[in-house]
Structure formats: structure tokens, C-alpha cells
């Protein structure tokens, strides 16, 4: 681009403003629009919003189909018998059998002359009659229950983020509550989700001495776990608070040896001086002086740069002014002990890029010396050191390893003095390289820079904590213990991602890392040639090979319970997600304990999510906070948006919104588990109660010559699902708790009940349905046998139809409600009121309905008051039939609880027997069904213990 003065400016992706960018600190710009509409990045990365239904709902549909089949079958059988019976009534127009039905002059429904037609009509009637099998109210009830569940989740104070006044917001789509209890894999964004996107200078190693007593989140979590006295109690900032130092954002460094000017007394004071001076100079930040207070804040490209400048300032090297050619500092002079102003002439900046992995500045200090100040990744920096500059190398390396293991982001600092001549030569070449307009401009710059960045003298290393959100390691550990896999999908570069992996205990020393990357030199050299086909071919081959070798490693060593971590970058991911490769990629990934995808685009995040979802057929949960996570959130079975600082886009397209990552623990382990359990129990119970009721109708029909005569009064039939069995089950769906929240969190493995879907397996569903059939059979036959032909009261009256069916209905109401009482494990006053109230209401209803005029109440007219209630046998039969129907289930339940307890049963026992205070016992139960976890700091601690014992 040519500007006024004929000066040439290169246009690079750095000048490109993406859609949604906002102009700040600038009044106006000139711009040209490139790529519009569907070509914008946002559109390219978007995926179609899917409609989501939970697994349980889908399975429920299948149960409904099954019930339809049963209903059709029953109707079919009934129709055949009915057709035969009807056909037999008339022979050659002469009445042969049941003359009292007048088959000679019958309408089509009962006409023996057209028996097949009558059978078909009967079939249709039967379908209507058996509609009580199909719980239509189930869908309504589940909707109500889910909405109420969501309200409860939203109300939870433990998920309320006080600082931002944000409660959890699960009601966004309430139909996924129970899915929260079945999550197998979590796909998480990094920035803003795991981390709060703020960097804190926390440690440093200068001249081979490690400084900094700040405690990282991981260390804190591990301490807590160990039970050793927690180094600090009240959160990340308490160190500063306890020392009455105002909290400084981006700075969490505490070491009295070098703070408050004490560094002067250290043995290597000169090195320390150079170290912090380098931090104050070698960066691209811009100071902003607040005119009123005089406070300086820094605008930096990345938050870690700001953290360095702030650290330097706190330690006495205040960077306060930058011009095009100079950097001004207020420095503490070690000799005089005074703060003096120094001006450094800025000669060159050799910027950071991902292949160089370092940045350097060249300055001339006020004594005229030319200094090359350089900071960069340890992998490159140590190679550049001069022989004489390696004094502290061993110590520094060790410190760096410690820092990296703690998840800190490390940089190595080094410098050297340049002679005037050397600089001149360099400067000429560098300017030339910078102004060249060709494809290999960058390479040229790199080559020139490489020549000057050598023979450096090591100063030390810094450690910056990419600040995790509160409680993230804890949360991840709990989730890992619950058997949930966590994948991190981030757009960050690989080093950052790995650091965070360490910080979150997803990675640890000794874990086998399988890194799939295309940063290999041969690919890079190919890229320079620009031959696209060759690049693609070579890349694909390379990725395929890396995946294959990874798989080989995993299968070879997995028997030794070795933990693997897969780290894959975006470029490789593009190939790994291709159709022919994705299966083996998925196999590899599922074989690894942790998976980190870095440099991945939003689209890739969504694709990975889809791959996991469709490949493993397990429930996936995606969590993210930014617009770049939208695709992933929509693609996953559940998308959770973090209502953080990055705007509302993720929240808008999420299913559940929470304020902090750590709330995920409670959301999944407590609410997810509860909701899953509640809903699965509720649906099973719904089928049970409808079958128990509907099947008595069928059985009665068998004894009514299959004539589709309903067993019960019409109102009884229609109100069964409305009044006599609905509210208690809704209460179960909303309130039931197998174990209290505390225990859900304490025994995270309980969550596996949802992941393995044990509470809604076909076995369980069919058992419940069987229970329904069985109850119906018992109720029907016991009632009808007990009320045979004989007189049923002391007045010699016999049991007519309404008496038998009234008794049966009473038994059914009792049985289904008591069955519910048996299967819930949490009785508050509400449950008591609803269960006993429902049963009581049945009696009340009989009385009231019975007193309606006979034209309305028909055959229920005064039945209860006049016939049932005064008869002793009615009450005796009710008592007997109800208990006899429930006893087998009760026995089954008792045997299971005692001899083959499910996991929640064991926890209930612990709670009930007051053994929860006995740590040994709890640990035993916990171990009993706990698989060794492979990630999280519990695993990390176990691994380091193993390591120690091996030594």
C-alpha cells in the first residue's frame, strides 16, 4: 500500500479486522472490506444450531413404541376372541347362544353376521380403551418436572456467583436436566473457562536462586487434599492482604528477600538488577498514566507481558514512558539506594513469533552500552547461551521444570552486550530484511535475528501463572474421580495449552505425552515451497504416522496402567478429522487420559465435539465462554456457557449457563445426578403405574367376553392420571434425593450410575413394566376371587360390577401410591401430604362423586357411602390385596439393598448407620468401586507417591 510520502507499507493479517471487532482509542480508520457475508470468519465457523433432546427422552420414545406394540397386541388378541364369540352367537340367522344380547338385531359393532367387521371395530374400541397404557400425561408431567428442577438448580446458592450477581441459569433449555447426570466427556474451552485470562507473576529464578513464595491454585488444591495445613486459607490474594500490601492485579509474588528493595543485599544483586531491568524494557507494552492519581497501568498485547512490567515496577523498576525511540524507567540505584530516572534508547525490537519463540530488544543505555535483551521459551533460549553465560544453567533448568510441572508459564531471560560495529552490521541487514517484500520476508528477518541472538548470558527465568479460575483444579479432580473425561479444546498455542494442562493436573510429570503436530521441519520446508498438494499429502502422511505410532504406544503400555496424554495441534487436527482418519484418531484419543487440542478453530472444536458425540455414543458436554465456542456448545449434547467477561454469545447459544467453571462440579455431580435419577425413576414409575392400571382393564375385558367393556366408571378412568397417581410422582421427579448433596460430592463415583445409565437400562425399565403387569394381575385376581358370587356384606347383598371395580380401583390407588412411597428415599412433608393426600382424595372423591345426581354419577351413585364403606370385607380385601401386591417388590428391594447394593445404596447405608464419621470405612466404600483415576491431582499425588516409593 502506498501512502502520501510514497512510503511503502506491507499489509499482513495483522491489519485485518475481523467482524465484530471494536475500535478503541482510535477516532477513525480507513478500511477496505474484504470477505463479506458467508466468507466472514464468523460465518465460516458457524454450525447449524441443532435441536437437542436428552437420551432419556429418546429412550422413552422407544418405550412408548413398545407399549404401542403391546396395546396393539392386546387389542388384536381381544378382537380375535371377540370376533369368534360374536360369530358364534348366530347361526344361519338363528340365535344359537346368547339370546339376551339380541344378536339378531345388532348394530355393526356387535353383529354376528358381520363378525370380521365387528372385530375390526372392536380393535379400534380396544385401542381407545387401552389408552391408559400409553402415558400421555407422562410428557406433560416430565415437562413440568423439568421446569421445576431447573428452578431449583437456579436457586442453588452454591452455584450463585456473588461477585457478578449471577446465579446458574439452567432454565435456558430445561429439557436437558437429566442429561447433566450422564456426561461422559467434557470438552472445555481454556481461556475464560478454565482460566480467568489474567496472568500473575508468581515466581522467578534469578542467578540460580528460586524466589517467590506465592502458592498456585494447584498447589493449594493438593495441599487441601493431603490434609496438611493449608498454606493459606482465604483464597489467592490473602498473602498480599496479610502483609498489608495492596492487591495488585497480575502480581502474586511474595518474597521478602528481594521485595521492598531488599534485593540489594542478595549475593547476585547485579544479576537481579539486570533481570528486572530486562523485564522492564523487553516488551511491547504501553504505559497509561492516570492523570489524577499518577498511577500507571499498562496496555499489553498479552496479559503475561503486563504481568512482567508490573512485577518489574513493584520491585523497583518502574517503566513509565515509551516513545518511538526510547523507554524511560524509574530505577532503584543499588549504590545510592535512591530512585533515579533512566532513559534507554530503543534501537530495535525483534518481535515474537511462534517459530522463534523469543523476543529481543536492542537498547542503548545512558552509559552508551548497547544491550541485547532477550526473553523466550526455555527450549530455544538455552541453546543460544554463550559458554560463559551458563553459570546458573543447571539450577535454572531444575526450577523451570518445577514451574512447568506446577502449570506455570516460564520464560528464560538472557542478555548480552553488543559492540557498536556488530550492531551496525546487524542493523543494516535487519532493516533490509524488514523492508523486503517477498514471501520469505519472515525467514529473512529470522535469519538476521538469529545471527545476533547468540552467545547470550543467562539471567534467570520467570514463572507466570495463567490464573485458573477459583476452584478449577478441585473441580477437575472431582470430575475425574467421577469418571468424566475432560478434553481441552483451545485456540492457544501448544505451550500455553500444555502449561494449563499441568496447572489443571490434566498432565503431570511422568505421563506419557503423545504429541501430534505438523511443526516438523520437513513440513515447514515444504510449506515454503508453496506446493499445496505436496503439503497436504505430506501432512496427511505425517499425521497418520503419528497417530498410528501413538496408538501402538498406548496399546503396548496401557496394560501397565501408564497414563497417556494426547496433545494435537490445529493443523494436524484438520487432517485427523478427515473421514478416513477420524476413527483411528478417536481410538487414540479415548485411549488417552487427557486430550488437549490446541490451535483449534471454532469449527474444529465443533467437529471434535461431533466426533466424540457420534463416535463414542456417549453424552458430551461442551463448556465455553466465548463466541468461538458457540459451534462446540451447539454441537455437544449439552452446551454450557460461562457468563463471563467475553460477552453473551456463548450464553445465548448454550443450554445451561453458569458463572464459573467450578460450579460444573455441583451442576453435574449433584444436580445432574439428582435430575437423572429423578427423571429415570419417574419415567419407570409412570410406565409401571399406567400398566398396573391399564392391565386390570384388559383383564376385566377378558372376563367380559372381550366386549371392550371398561372396567371402571368413565370418570375413574379419566381421572386416574390426573388426580389419583400424578402429584406424588411429580413430587418424586422434583424433590427426590437418593443421597444428600454432601454425599454426592463426597462419593463422586456415584455419578457413574448416570454415565453407565444403570437407572434407565432396559433391564430396569422392563422390570418396572413387569412389576406393573404383575401388580395388575394380583389386584385383579385377588379382588375377583375374594368377591366371587357370595354375599359381600352382612345384608346378603352380592358384589355387583361397581363393587368389584370400586374395590379394584381402591387397591390400585393404594398400590401405586405406596409403591411410590417405597421407591422414593426422601420424605419431606410435601411427599407425605401428596401421597397420603392422593389416597385420601380418592375416598373423598368417591363420596362427593357418589352424591352427584345419578344422571351424572351413573353407576358410581352412592356406591362408596352405601355399599363399600359399610362392608367390612371391602376394607379387609383392600388391606390384603395392597400388602400382598407390594410384598414381592419390597422383598426384592430388601434383598438388593442388603446383599447386592447399588452404589447409592452403599452410600445410604453409610449415612444411615452414622458411619460417615468413620473415615476408614468411607474410604473402603469409596475404594470398593472406584477405578483408579488417571488425571486430576488425586491421581497426580498418587503418581508422585509411587514415584517416591520406587526410589
Amino acid at each position, binding site marked *: 500500500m502506498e501512502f502520501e510520502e510514497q512510503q511503502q507499507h506491507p499489509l499482513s493479517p495483522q491489519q485485518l479486522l475481523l467482524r465484530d471487532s471494536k475500535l478503541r482509542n482510535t477516532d477513525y480508520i480507513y478500511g477496505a472490506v474484504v470477505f463479506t457475508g458467508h466468507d466472514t470468519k464468523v460465518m465460516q465457523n458457524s454450525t447449524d444450531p441443532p435441536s437437542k433432546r436428552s437420551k432419556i427422552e429418546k429412550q422413552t420414545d422407544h418405550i412408548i413404541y413398545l407399549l404401542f406394540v403391546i396395546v396393539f397386541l392386546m387389542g388384536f388378541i381381544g378382537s380375535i376372541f371377540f370376533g369368534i364369540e360374536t360369530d358364534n352367537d348366530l347361526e344361519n340367522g338363528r340365535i344359537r347362544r346368547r339370546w339376551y344380547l339380541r344378536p339378531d338385531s345388532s348394530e355393526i359393532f356387535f353383529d354376528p353376521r358381520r363378525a370380521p367387521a365387528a372385530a375390526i371395530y372392536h380393535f379400534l374400541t380396544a385401542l381407545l380403551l387401552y389408552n391408559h397404557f400409553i402415558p400421555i400425561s407422562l410428557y406433560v408431567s416430565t415437562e413440568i418436572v423439568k421446569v421445576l428442577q431447573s428452578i431449583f438448580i437456579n436457586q442453588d446458592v452454591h452455584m450463585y456467583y456473588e461477585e457478578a450477581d449471577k446465579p446458574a441459569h439452567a432454565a435456558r433449555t430445561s429439557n436437558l436436566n437429566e442429561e447433566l447426570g450422564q456426561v461422559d466427556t467434557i470438552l472445555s474451552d481454556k481461556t475464560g473457562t478454565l482460566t480467568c485470562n489474567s496472568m500473575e507473576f508468581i515466581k522467578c529464578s534469578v542467578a540460580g536462586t528460586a524466589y517467590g513464595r506465592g502458592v498456585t491454585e494447584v498447589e493449594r488444591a493438593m495441599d487441601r487434599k493431603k490434609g496438611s495445613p493449608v498454606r493459606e486459607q482465604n483464597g489467592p490474594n490473602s498473602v498480599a492482604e496479610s502483609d498489608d500490601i495492596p492487591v495488585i492485579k497480575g502480581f502474586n509474588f511474595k518474597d521478602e528477600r528481594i521485595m521492598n528493595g531488599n534485593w540489594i543485599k542478595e549475593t547476585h544483586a547485579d544479576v537481579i538488577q539486570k533481570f528486572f531491568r530486562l523485564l522492564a524494557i523487553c516488551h511491547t507494552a504501553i504505559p497509561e498514566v492516570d492523570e489524577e492519581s499518577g498511577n500507571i497501568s499498562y496496555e499489553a498485547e498479552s496479559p503475561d507481558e503486563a504481568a512482567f512490567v508490573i512485577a518489574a515496577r513493584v520491585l523497583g523498576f518502574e517503566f513509565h514512558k515509551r516513545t518511538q525511540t526510547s523507554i524511560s524507567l524509574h530505577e532503584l540505584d543499588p549504590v545510592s539506594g535512591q530512585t533515579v530516572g533512566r532513559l534507554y534508547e530503543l534501537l530495535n525490537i525483534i518481535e515474537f513469533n511462534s517459530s522463534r519463540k523469543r523476543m529481543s530488544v536492542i537498547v542503548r543505555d545512558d552509559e552508551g552500552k548497547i544491550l541485547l535483551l532477550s526473553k523466550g521459551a526455555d527450549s530455544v533460549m538455552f541453546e543460544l547461551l554463550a559458554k560463559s553465560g551458563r553459570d546458573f544453567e543447571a539450577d535454572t533448568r531444575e526450577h523451570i521444570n518445577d514451574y512447568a510441572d506446577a502449570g506455570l508459564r516460564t520464560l528464560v531471560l538472557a542478555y548480552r552486550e553488543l559492540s557498536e560495529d556488530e550492531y551496525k552490521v546487524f542493523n543494516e541487514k535487519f532493516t533490509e530484511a524488514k523492508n523486503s517484500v517477498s514471501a520469505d520476508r519472515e525467514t529473512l528477518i529470522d535469519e538476521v535475528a538469529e545471527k545476533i541472538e547468540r552467545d547470550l548470558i543467562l539471567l534467570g527465568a520467570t514463572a507466570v501463572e495463567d490464573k485458573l479460575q477459583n476452584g478449577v483444579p478441585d473441580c477437575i479432580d472431582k470430575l475425574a474421580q467421577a469418571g468424566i473425561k475432560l478434553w481441552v479444546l483451545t485456540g492457544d498455542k501448544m505451550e500455553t495449552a500444555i502449561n494449563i494442562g499441568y496447572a489443571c493436573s490434566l498432565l503431570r510429570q511422568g505421563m506419557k505425552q503423545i504429541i501430534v503436530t505438523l511443526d516438523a521441519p520437513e513440513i515447514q520446508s515444504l510449506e515454503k515451497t508453496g506446493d499445496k498438494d505436496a503439503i497436504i499429502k505430506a501432512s496427511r502422511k505425517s499425521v497418520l504416522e503419528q497417530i498410528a505410532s501413538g496408538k501402538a504406544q498406548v496399546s503396548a503400555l496401557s496394560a501397565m496402567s501408564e497414563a497417556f496424554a494426547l496433545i494435537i495441534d490445529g493443523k494436524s487436527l484438520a487432517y485427523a478429522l478427515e473421514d478416513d482418519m477420524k476413527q483411528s484418531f478417536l481410538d487414540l484419543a479415548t485411549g488417552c487420559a487427557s486430550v488437549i487440542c490446541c490451535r483449534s478453530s471454532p469449527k474444529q472444536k465443533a467437529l471434535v465435539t461431533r466426533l466424540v458425540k457420534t463416535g463414542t455414543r456417549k453424552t458430551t458436554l461442551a463448556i465455553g465462554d466465548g463466541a468461538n465456542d458457540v459451534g462446540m456448545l451447539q454441537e455437544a449434547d449439552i452446551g454450557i456457557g460461562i457468563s463471563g467477561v467475553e460477552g453473551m454469545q456463548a450464553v445465548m447459544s448454550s443450554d445451561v449457563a453458569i458463572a464459573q467453571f467450578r460450579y460444573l462440579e455441583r451442576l453435574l455431580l449433584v444436580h445432574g445426578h439428582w435430575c437423572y435419577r429423578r427423571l429415570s425413576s419417574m419415567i419407570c414409575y409412570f410406565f409401571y403405574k399406567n400398566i398396573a392400571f391399564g392391565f386390570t382393564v384388559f383383564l376385566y375385558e377378558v372376563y367380559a367376553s372381550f366386549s371392550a*367393556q371398561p372396567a371402571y366408571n368413565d370418570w375413574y378412568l379419566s381421572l386416574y392420571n390426573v388426580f389419583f397417581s400424578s402429584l406424588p410422582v411429580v413430587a418424586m421427579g422434583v424433590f427426590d434425593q437418593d443421597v444428600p448433596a454432601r454425599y454426592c460430592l463426597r462419593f463422586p463415583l456415584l455419578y457413574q450410575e448416570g454415565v453407565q445409565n444403570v437407572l434407565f437400562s432396559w433391564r430396569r425399565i422392563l422390570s418396572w413394566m413387569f412389576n406393573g403387569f404383575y401388580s395388575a394381575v394380583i389386584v385383579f385376581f385377588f379382588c375377583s*376371587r375374594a368377591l366371587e358370587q357370595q*354375599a359381600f356384606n352382612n345384608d346378603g347383598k*352380592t358384589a355387583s360390577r361397581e*363393587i368389584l*371395580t370400586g374395590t379394584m380401583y381402591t387397591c390400585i390407588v393404594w398400590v401405586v401410591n405406596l409403591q411410590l412411597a417405597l421407591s422414593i428415599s426422601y420424605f419431606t412433608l410435601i411427599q407425605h401430604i401428596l401421597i397420603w393426600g392422593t389416597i385420601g382424595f380418592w375416598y373423598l372423591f368417591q363420596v362427593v362423586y357418589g352424591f352427584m345426581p345419578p344422571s351424572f354419577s351413573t353407576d358410581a351413585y352412592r356406591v362408596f357411602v352405601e355399599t363399600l364403606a359399610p362392608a*367390612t370385607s371391602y376394607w379387609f380385601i383392600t388391606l390384603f390385596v395392597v400388602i400382598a401386591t407390594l*410384598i414381592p417388590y419390597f422383598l426384592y428391594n430388601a434383598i438388593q*439393598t442388603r446383599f447386592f447394593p447399588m452404589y447409592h445404596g452403599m452410600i445410604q447405608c453409610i449415612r444411615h448407620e452414622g458411619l460417615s464419621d468413620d473415615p476408614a470405612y468411607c474410604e473402603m466404600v469409596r475404594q470398593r468401586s472406584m477405578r483408579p483415576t488417571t488425571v486430576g491431582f488425586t491421581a497426580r499425588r498418587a503418581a508422585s507417591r509411587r514415584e517416591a516409593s520406587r526410589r
Partner: protein
Amino acid sequence: MSETNSDRQRRGDRESAFYLFTQQRLPACKPVLTPPWVITIYFLVGFIFVPVGLFTLRASHSVVEIEERYDIECVPSQFRNDKVSYIQDDSVPKNCSLLFKVDKYMKAPIYIYYQLENYYQNHRRYVRSRSDQQLLHGRNFHGTSYCQPLESSNNRPIVPCGLIAWSLFNDTFTFIRGKALLKVNRTNIAWKSDRDHKFGKNVYPFNFQNGTWIGGGKLNPRIPLSNQEDLIVWMRISALPSFRKLYGRIEEDLDVGDYVVVQLMNDYNTYSFGGKKKLVLSTSNWLGGKNDFLGLAYVFVGSSSLTVAIVFMLLHLRSQR
């Protein structure tokens, strides 16, 4: 001070029922099926059910019941091969007599039932074929289409209409002990609510059994429906295809060794559909009539519970954790 007050208030809020409710931490009973509970419950069920069962069984045994099938014996031997033509032939006399021997002392009132088997009163066509409104309001009520094909005959409405009334049971019984006629009380055999509220006091049978085909019994057109108790009993539909209906009461005690001769008119056709007809004399007590099922079932379930309790206890003790 103000702070501590607000603290206290907050604590108060935290313990308020509503707060606990929203946090799902309401005080709750959390029953766990521990073995002691299970064993206790089974013992409890056993210890309640067995005595109740025995008690019920005793009540059932104390009822004296005489049952006699008569639909075959009452057919003259020449008609045995074609009972249907016998019953449909008006010229053949239908009277018949049965001899009942009383084995146990029967205390009045002794209930007389007729029992029909394989008779589908609960067939849908049959059940619907009545008009409650007409029974209550008489022939001025016209919405009687359910009664087809017995809604009207000769263009005049039938009261009571429908299949149920039309097929009214019409065997009649008279009882003779020794030489004397036993008095049979045939009132108060129907439910009071039926008599008072379902069958009209001013509704008289009209045009009943006047068609070409006469189904069952006829009604005296001068007696209002509310007093036609046979009809009322018949129209209270039976639950299952074999059923008893109350015919009347003998209000004298019957002694052991008494012979009761029953003179009956075997008019009702059950032969075409192979139904049985029985005559039953039975006393009654607080539990009703004779049926051992309930008592036996109680005892069975009760004793099974006891067994389960003991087995469970043994298993539990043997495999103590």
C-alpha cells in the same frame, strides 16, 4: 450492632423453611431398608396377617350355605338332548321341584340366591342397553337410543327399555318345609339408593314384553318401578360372568335335618348358551357369605412373610459385613 443484627437475620433466613426448600434441604425422613427394618416389617405383616386370616377363615366357615344346580335336573328326560327347544316350547310345563337337606343349623335370615354362570351381564352391548333417565322419569323421556333394539315396539316406547330389563330373570321359587310354606320376604333385596333415586316412584311398566319375542320375565304394570325389586336387583349389573343375585329372605331358622322342598318354575333360558342355574341358600355374617379365599390368602401371605423374615434374618446373620 446493626451488623450483628443483619447477620442474625441472615442466619434466620438461612434456616427458614423457604430457604431450606429452595436449597432442597428440607428436613426429611430418609428411610433406608436396613435388615432390621425389613425383618421387623415382615414379622409385623406375618403377625397381623395370620390371625386376621384365621379370624376371616372362621367367619367364612361359620356361614352355612346350600347350593343346588337345577338347570339340568329340571329338564324332563325326553328333552335332555335338546334343552333349548324345551325351554322355548311354551306348551311344556316348566315346574320342577328340588329337595334341600339342611345339614347345619341355619339362623334367620337365610338368603336365597339364584346363581347364573357363563352369563355375560357385563357384555358391553348389554351394559349399555338401558336408560337410567327413563327408569327415573318414565316414558316421557325420549333419549333412549341406547336401548335399541328394545327401545320401542309397535311404535310405542317400552318402559323399562333395553336388553337388561327385557332379559329379566324369571324363574320363581317357593319353599316348603314339611307341610308348611316357608315365608319368603322379597322386599328390601335391592339397594336403597336404587329404589329411592334410580327407579321412579311414578314410573310404571309400559308396553313391556309386548313384542314378538318375549325375553325374560314380565312386570306387573300396576306396580311402580321403585317397588319392582326383582328388576332393580337384576339391573344392578354383575361384575363377572358367574354371579348370584338375591331372590329373597327366609325369615325362619332352619334346623339340622330339615328338608326343604323347592317348587320352582324353570322359565329362564340358559340352555342356548350353556349357562348353569343354581339355587343357593346361605346365611350371612359380618364378612358376608361363604368364601374361604380371603382367609386362606391372608394366612398364606402371613406365613410366607414370617418365613421370609426368618430366612432373611438367617442370611443376614450368616453374611455379616
